[in-house]
């Protein structure tokens, strides 16, 4: 190790200790300090690790957590980065913080922001990349899915020997010829028909001839068994496939991958994709299907994002929504609830929520009137937008209450006509609600 690297690492580590001890923080600053002193520090830090990079616009965090869980069945030392540390500096900090490992070469499973893949591969040649999906986000809706994918590929180009483990149901991941070995995972659980995606779906052009793609079936959004009737372009052969979805509830999903029955304690078809990605990485790394099943059963806390909060005897589930694809998945998930419930939709339009609220019109709220929803409440800064959205979706005005003030919405929860309450909220609306919940003692502070 060079003297420069040693000094840089020492500076970074001591700043981590300082921040961690006195401020309970320190996710990116130590990385920043270290990088300043030694710009190539990642090469030094990463060279003893087998690295798996997980990237894509949605599902990175859970896929990373699940992958670590699966690999733990076979490997002892696995380094991973905490949520929100998926940029270069956060990744440097993750390595700095790692305990020294003796003996076997350790693994690092890293969630990496799409644009930061290249900042990692400049210094580290990963063993594998995992591509979850690429959807457009409301935050930068002029940022194109193709541009995002190209950013990832620019990073991958520096590691042509790394195996790519990609979601085979996403047409974009089959659009470019790459030198890397590729493993595809996907869904194979529905009868074969000939359909097109709904008109407001993004990314449905054939990458080869620019005609509209058709599908034998769609799992959600533009994911599925696609084919182009014009030029014959089609989904690649899947190496690992989900064959069957046995049961879906808002809190769990049971399914079979390559015949192995698996249950995860989280709802939502999109989370099945995350589990399938982790399973595939496991298979790639020599973890057996049965071990993966066990891994998912062992530690249920990894799914612990959708907690249920008790408010005045009501079971409240608070869910973040930020883009149409995610929103539609949440709508789909709550539709699997067998019990009647109350639906609360809260729309803010601060920068962190996305200041353009037009995306709510791509949400399939038309499904709500068909569910066992006894009461609707809409609120937040843009309560008029979300209220009108539900009105147009056919929600019965007699069941629909409007309350802009989020604190007053919280007061309405104990009076809800059902035991179960689902709250769909944009980011700052969610923060504000959690603050109120914490102040009233319903939850222990913070984002949890």
């Amino acid at each position, binding site marked *: 190790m060079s003297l420069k690297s040693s000094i840089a690492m020492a500076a970074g580590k001591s700043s981590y200790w300082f921040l961690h001890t006195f401020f309970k923080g320190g996710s990116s600053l130590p990385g920043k300090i270290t990088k300043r002193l030694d710009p190539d520090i990642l090469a030094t830090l990463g060279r003893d690790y087998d690295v798996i990079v997980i990237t894509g616009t949605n599902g990175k965090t859970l896929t990373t957590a699940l992958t670590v869980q699966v690999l733990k069945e076979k490997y002892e030392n696995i380094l991973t980065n905490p949520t929100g540390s998926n940029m270069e500096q956060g990744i440097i900090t993750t390595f700095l913080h790692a305990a020294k490992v003796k003996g076997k070469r350790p693994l690092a499973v890293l969630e990496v922001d799409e644009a930061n893949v290249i900042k990692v591969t400049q210094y580290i040649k990963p063993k594998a990349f995992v591509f979850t999906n690429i959807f457009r986000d409301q935050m930068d809706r002029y940022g194109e899915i193709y541009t995002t994918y190209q950013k990832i590929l620019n990073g991958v180009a520096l590691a042509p020997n790394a195996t790519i483990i990609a979601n085979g149901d996403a047409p974009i991941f089959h659009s470019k010829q790459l030198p890397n070995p590729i493993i595809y995972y996907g869904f194979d659980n529905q009868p074969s028909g000939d359909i097109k995606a709904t008109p407001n779906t993004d990314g449905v052009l054939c990458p080869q001839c620019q005609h509209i793609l058709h599908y034998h079936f769609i799992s959600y959004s533009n994911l599925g068994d696609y084919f182009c009737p014009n030029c014959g372009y089609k989904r690649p052969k899947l190496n690992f496939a989900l064959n069957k979805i046995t049961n879906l509830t808002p809190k769990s999903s049971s399914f079979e991958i390559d015949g192995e029955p698996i249950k995860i304690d989280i709802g939502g078809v999109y989370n099945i994709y995350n589990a399938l990605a982790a399973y595939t990485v496991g298979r790639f790394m020599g973890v057996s299907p049965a071990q993966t099943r066990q891994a998912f059963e062992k530690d249920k806390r990894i799914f612990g994002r959708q907690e249920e909060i008790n408010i005045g005897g009501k079971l409240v589930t608070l869910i973040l929504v930020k883009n149409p694809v995610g929103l539609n998945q949440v709508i789909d998930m709550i539709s699997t609830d067998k019990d009647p419930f109350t639906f609360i939709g809260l729309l803010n339009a601060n920068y962190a929520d996305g200041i353009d609220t*037009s995306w709510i019109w791509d949400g399939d709220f038309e499904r709500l009137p068909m569910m066992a929803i006894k009461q609707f409440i809409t609120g937040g800064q843009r309560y008029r937008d979300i209220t009108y*959205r539900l009105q147009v979706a056919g929600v019965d005005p007699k069941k629909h209450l409007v309350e802009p003030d989020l604190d007053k919405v919280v007061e309405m929860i104990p009076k809800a006509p059902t035991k179960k309450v689902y709250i769909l909220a944009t980011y700052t609306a969610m923060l504000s609600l959690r603050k109120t919940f914490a102040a009233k003692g319903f939850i222990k502070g913070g984002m949890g």
Partner: protein
Amino acid sequence: MTYSLHVCHLYGDLMNTYGDLGNILVLKYLANKMGVKLTSEVVSLGQDFDPDKFDIVVFGGGQDFEQSIVSKDIQTKKKGLTQFIENGGSVVAICGGYQLLGRYYIGANGEKLAGIGALDHYTDKQKDHRFIGNVVIQNEETGEKYHGFENHQGITFLGKGERPLGKVLEGHGNNGQDHTEGAIYKNVYCTYFHGPILARNNEIAKHVLMNALERKYPNADLSQAQSVKVGSTF
């Protein structure tokens, strides 16, 4: 008598970036209140546009790549669309859709891409800058105020026979220079507004529906449809 209107959702599967489907949903919702049955169908790549089949065309905004594909394909529909517009057909065109009805726009890599020239405006491009934010405009003929959200790099300049949808009170509008936003030509409404525009501004949705009804049923008594109240939803 039951009235019906048929909407062409032009390139609805490609030009759909800003909740554009919302414009169709709102047209259906209001039409239903007016006692009008409204149906819609997507007309996209490789398909003909038959001007006699439709009463309203809704043409949304898309991503650069999709819009460049549409720019080529729409030339095959130029004749039909121009005829539809000249004969008083109702059109709502947003962002990329608005640009493509004009003479040309500038693509992602600086290349000049053809519109169909059914309207006389053209669109240049700001260098490394976008107009992003809330917009408020006033329709100077009706006095109505419209609310929306803009996010565009293109700067559009109106041409012969076009008048703006409104005068910019807040935000940037067509080009940030002449205080105009959008365009009106015959029964065509063009705009950079997301919102989507018809959801935020029910008045425009009503104008579009009434124009289409009057054209399709010139001798009918449309007072019931006309009596449906629309108010601010923003």
